[in-house]
């Protein structure tokens, strides 16, 4: 850039190309300006996203921190959640999540493996499954809630229960998980599959020792997105895992999740706002912990199979 501009401004070239020179100059000024604008816009976008996240967390922390204490985590709610804590709700939430993960991970990884390793993209079944996944991913959560209620609670006779809620959330998390796993698997270089075949590894062994570990970060990312969507869910859970805030005795008991609790406190319980904020703070904390643990686990799984060169 620098030498160019000195040439165009050199006095020896003033006569004929002066017009061309000045347009070149303005073009360069423009280029510089638009470059700066572009950089500024990108920074601004990043700053805005970071700021809105910080704002949300700061607002929730500001309103909820006073209420948050060890006893808030270990006591059962009293007076519709205005007093007491959220111990029973935390337990229900974790149980629902456990059911979701236990169902979604094997099914999701299975479907993704089938899509990426055992089917051709253009085959009819793969196309149907892909369309089904795209549609599933776009379905509003209240529809999952009503479906879950009609299918799991009523048709399968599971009633309002943690199992019903977990299965409904698994349906919601599946498309995200499958997509992420599939893209992770297809990002594994084809040489690795040939290498595994050349070493005489069966397809299952190649998957277990090479392909899945290599795709582990992608699977984790998908799982976390799915869990994030699931744990924030109210509409799908009000009609499936339900509203009961007693300590669940089995997976067949109804149990209120954190998000349902927060919704109820902020909408139906006068004077429940502070407890709602504190519960929201716990929910965010829980998500951060789950994220950290999942990333740790996936790194360990990957490193135990694939030694870095």
């Amino acid at each position, binding site marked *: 850039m620098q030498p160019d501009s000195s040439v165009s401004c050199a006095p020896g070239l003033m006569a004929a190309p002066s017009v061309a020179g000045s347009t070149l100059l303005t073009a360069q000024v423009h280029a510089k300006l638009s470059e700066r604008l572009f950089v500024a816009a990108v920074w601004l976008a990043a700053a805005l996203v970071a700021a809105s996240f910080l704002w949300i967390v700061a607002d929730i922390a500001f309103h909820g921190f006073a209420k948050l204490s060890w006893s808030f985590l270990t006591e059962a709610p009293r007076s519709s959640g205005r007093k007491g804590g959220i111990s029973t709700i935390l337990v229900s939430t974790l149980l629902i999540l456990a059911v979701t993960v236990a169902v979604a991970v094997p099914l999701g990884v299975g479907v993704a493996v089938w899509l990426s390793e*055992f089917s051709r993209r253009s085959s009819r079944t793969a196309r149907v499954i892909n369309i089904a996944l795209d549609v599933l991913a776009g379905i509003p959560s209240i529809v999952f809630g009503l479906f879950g209620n009609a299918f799991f609670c009523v048709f*399968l006779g599971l009633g309002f229960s943690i199992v019903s809620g977990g299965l409904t959330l698994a349906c919601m998390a599946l498309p995200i998980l499958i997509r992420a796993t599939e893209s992770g698997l297809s990002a594994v270089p084809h040489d690795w599959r040939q290498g595994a075949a050349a070493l005489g590894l069966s397809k299952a062994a190649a998957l277990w020792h090479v392909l899945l570990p290599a795709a582990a970060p992608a699977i984790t990312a998908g799982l976390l997105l799915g869990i994030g969507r699931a744990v924030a869910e109210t509409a799908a859970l009000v009609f499936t895992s339900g509203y009961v805030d007693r300590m669940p005795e089995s997976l067949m008991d109804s149990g209120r999740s954190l998000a349902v609790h927060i919704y109820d406190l902020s*909408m*139906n319980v*006068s004077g429940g706002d502070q407890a709602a904020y504190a519960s929201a703070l716990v929910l965010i904390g829980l998500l951060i912990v789950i994220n950290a643990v999942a990333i740790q686990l996936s790194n360990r799984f990957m490193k135990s199979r694939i030694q870095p060169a």
Partner: protein
Amino acid sequence: MVIQNLRLPFLDSCVALLAACAVLLSAPDASAQEKQDKKLTITGASTAAPLVAEIAKRFESANPGVRVDVQTGGSSRGVNDARSGVSDIGMVSRALSKEEKDLKSFLIANDGMSVILHKTNPVQALTREQVIDIYTGKISNWKEVGGKDQKITVVNKAEGRSTLELFLAFFKLNNRDIKAQVVVGDNQQGVKTVAGNPGAIGYVSIGTAEFEVENGQPLKLLPLGGIAATTANVRNGSFPLARPINIVTKNEPLGLVKKFVDFAQSTAVTDLVKEQYFVPPAR
């Protein structure tokens, strides 16, 4: 060939897994029948759910071994579930309509609401039209309704609050048309906002308002249609801006259902009703 070999076991194991799940999950269903006389399911209005859930907890501790599950989903759902037998008892946060009179309904609480002003505001009463005009922004100064020359601060409830629904339904307003200066979340916030602003108008649950006035908050409860906004008038049904909180059953209640209905209507739960800012009915 390799593909075929691997695909089939996978599908097989899927089917086996599903079958195992079905067996596992349907197993507890058999014993559920025996527990039936020890378990109540209550569904319906989300406004009533926190109160009924608290009543249920007290009922459980008074009757060891009994379990009462409360689920939400709205008044219509409460009616439908009670009628179809999905639930033993439904919760309905309004009076039953003509088509719903086949159900037995039992009043457990009243939800009344009062328009509140600052104590120093000389306005003693507002007509229905005046309240509507103030909330839609057509009247923006107190002198237009006989008060001081002072700007009106309109305090509205946040979307989704049951008091907002009651208010909108009573004044036949649409929330989009309301021009509010302050939007508050709960009763306490509404009380604080009006108490701290001499030009404000708001509305809160009557139980809260009365309690706060007794405790020295500078508030004034406006009468509606000439009827004073008091819990007594809500209880006797004369105050217009109120609604009943009912529980409904399909048939004349028997056994455990009857026990619960009686309990929910007894004085043993009066403190719980008040705690939810509802007005206990006359016993």
